[in-house]
């Protein structure tokens, strides 16, 4: 198996040549790039968000990226193997989602919070627990206008009834 070597091209070379890529290879290339992007984005989301469900969401994004790559390779090699794997990925992702949701619910019931930063029992003895000052409340949404309930005559001021012409 040959391992591709990365090399940074010098100034008068380009990463991609001027020759146009054949259609199939270009399609493969692009799909793989998108898959890599989705995978990376999913990883960033998993590493930075504190809500357990959003973390899980990011994992699913990663799985999507992988699925896309597999399907692209499947087309390129004219073989159904990649798509088979994606079918199983979908099935396993479903199971995983079910179990993960159950676990998240159980954890939520223990601490009444979806924050993953409270679950730090594996920390060393001299690492202090998380202490955060509370953030200020976000500005409340402006009150939406309310309609009066239907079926009741709106209140009209007496001045309006005085000089309003009868229509």
């Amino acid at each position, binding site marked *: 198996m040959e*391992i*591709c*070597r*990365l090399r940074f091209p010098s100034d008068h070379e380009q990463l991609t040549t001027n020759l146009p890529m054949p259609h199939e290879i270009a399609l493969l290339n692009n799909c793989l790039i998108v898959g890599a992007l989705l995978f990376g984005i999913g*990883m960033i989301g*998993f*590493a*930075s968000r504190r809500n357990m469900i959003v*973390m899980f969401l990011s994992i699913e994004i990663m799985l999507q990226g992988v699925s896309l790559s597999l399907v692209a390779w499947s087309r390129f090699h004219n073989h159904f193997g990649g798509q088979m794997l994606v079918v199983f990925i979908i099935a396993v992702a479903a199971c995983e989602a079910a179990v993960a949701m159950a676990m998240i619910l159980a954890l939520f019931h223990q601490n009444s919070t979806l924050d*993953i*930063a409270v*679950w*730090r*029992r*594996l*920390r*060393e003895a*001299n*690492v202090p627990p998380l202490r955060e000052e509370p953030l200020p409340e976000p500005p409340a949404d402006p009150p939406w206008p309310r309609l009066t309930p239907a079926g009741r005559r709106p209140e009209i001021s007496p001045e309006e009834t005085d000089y309003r012409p009868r229509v």
Partner: protein
Amino acid sequence: MDTKTLLILIPALPLAAAVLTAVLGKRVLRAQSHLPVVAAIALSFAASLLLVFQVQERIERQAGQAVPAASVGCEGTLATLWCWADVGTISLGDNPTATSKSLQSPAWGDLRINITLRADPLSAVMLAVVTCISTLVAVYSIGYMRGDPGYWRFFSYIGLFVFSMTMLVAASNFLVLFVFWELVGLCSYLLIGFWFEKPAAAAAGKKAFLVNRIGDFGFMLGVFLIWIVYGTLDFHDTVVDGHTAAMGVLGPSRLAHGPFVGGWPATAICLLLLLGACGKSAQFPLHVWLPDAMEGPTPVSALIHAATMVTAGVYMIARCAPLYAASADAQYVVAAIGGVTALLGAIIAITQTDLKRILAYSTISHLGYMFVALGTCTLVGATAGMFHLMTHAFFKALLFLGAGSVMHAMGGVLDIRRLGGLRHRLPVTHWTFLIGCLAMVGVAPLSGFWSKDAILLAIQQRTASDGASDLFHLLFATSMLGVLLIDFYTFRPFFMTFHGPERIPPEAGDHAHESPGTMTGPLVVLAFGSVVVGGYFEWTHGFSHFLAASPSLAYLSTPTGDAAAAAAEHWSIVAISTVIVVVGIMATAILYLGNRKNVTRLARAMDIFGLYSLSYGKFFIDPIYNALIVRPLLSLARLAAWFDRHVVDGLVDFCGAVPGRLGAVVRPVQNGMVQFYALVMVLGLLVLVVALLM
């Protein structure tokens, strides 16, 4: 039985008995633990008497034969047990062919130590004295130590001590002598601290051992110097195939032809050996351990600190007499130290109140006399010193055992101010004690008289010969003063304890009766010996002739002088000393038998010049040593302990703390956050990927 077998048996029997008692004593023998030891020591005594007769026979045989040209005295019989060390030939550069050794040059590079025992008149006399006193003391201990929980241990130690003392006097090699010198010191420590639960006894044992150690250090340096100067450590010659391969330090060839190295090596050797003797024989300034050693049981004091161990120093100097003959300065130092010690011990003994302490100081004083006699370095002087050693052994042991009997009856009280009028309750003790006192002060015809007079005569004769006669005149005067003091400090406790109104301390309880037969028996035998031994030997001149045949002493010159004038001097000294003795006894009797008010008046009179407090405070030597030596050493020890605890241990603790600190630095990585772990995993993955793909 031939001499070699006897020589080997004499130390072997007590050793076997000691081991047997040590192994079986606690469980099996218990109250019968004395049986093997007493039997063994008694057999040793019999063997040593036989040995004396055999040596005597040999002397007469050699005197009858034609004496070979180069022979000084009667060469002893040697019994070699085994070769302890044989370090082969070490060639030292300028002496590559070490096989060719001439009799004149030292055989450098060949260290061969054989365990060899010798039987010549000097060692035979010492063996007889040691085993005789040991037998009597062992029999006494049966009664004295009865009921003590360490009964078996006591007899085992006694056996060990007799073994080491007999080996010491029989050894024919400086290194072997030194080994048993140390072993005797060890036995002394064990026996002084026998009741080790008593802190005073344990401290006394330690003090004895440590002060002896100082002396032993000097002894060791002396032995090293002998090796360097003479090239060998044997007393005897190494005989190979009938011809002398190497000269011993005190062997017949060296005694006949020499050379004995003179000048500063000889003085250094003699002074270092003297240091060892001072430690062992409690001479000034290393005498401080002997009074404290009275914490041990009384039989121990009688055996070790009166008759045998403390005489090891005297024996050693007598044995090395040819070495001392080569250095006049060392002789003067020996005599001077002896004189100072004699006077010091006598002055301190006058005012002490503890019976055993008085006897201890009197032992120090008498050992001083022996050293003075040896310091004259004449045949007469050496013989007189050894004779006094023998008689002193008898009467001092008798006095100590009598004190033990008093202590046994009075429940452990020995303060003579609290005792009185015991002659009716303890008759045997009273009469034997009286005989011992008379022997000590030197009343004719008891043994002490003959030996003390021999010493005085030797000093007097030495003043006649050349070389530092002023010193010996001074020593003669101090000896006469010492004679006066002897009767005072001897009869003062006697009168206070046994005469006067009867005073029994409450600790006596129902003990205040005469001691059992096992204790009074040896007292009687020793009393008989004190009376008879001196007179018999001196009358027949047998002792001096016997000793004069031993090689070391025969080397010493006999001063030629006018025989008639010598005889006249002899009788004048006898007369003067007898007068002094009688006057002293009468003065003491007047002071102590009647009203004792005069005593306090005399004491206060003496205290005008501070003499009384100086004497009672033992010349404050112990506090001086404490301040000068003990305190600085303790501070040094404290400093070393601080260093060890803080610097050395601190370093070790620091090394141990390093992993912990490193861990504390790395530990915050484990913060329990899942995402952090995931991030770190990704980081690792990235590094791997980039490394593989680059």
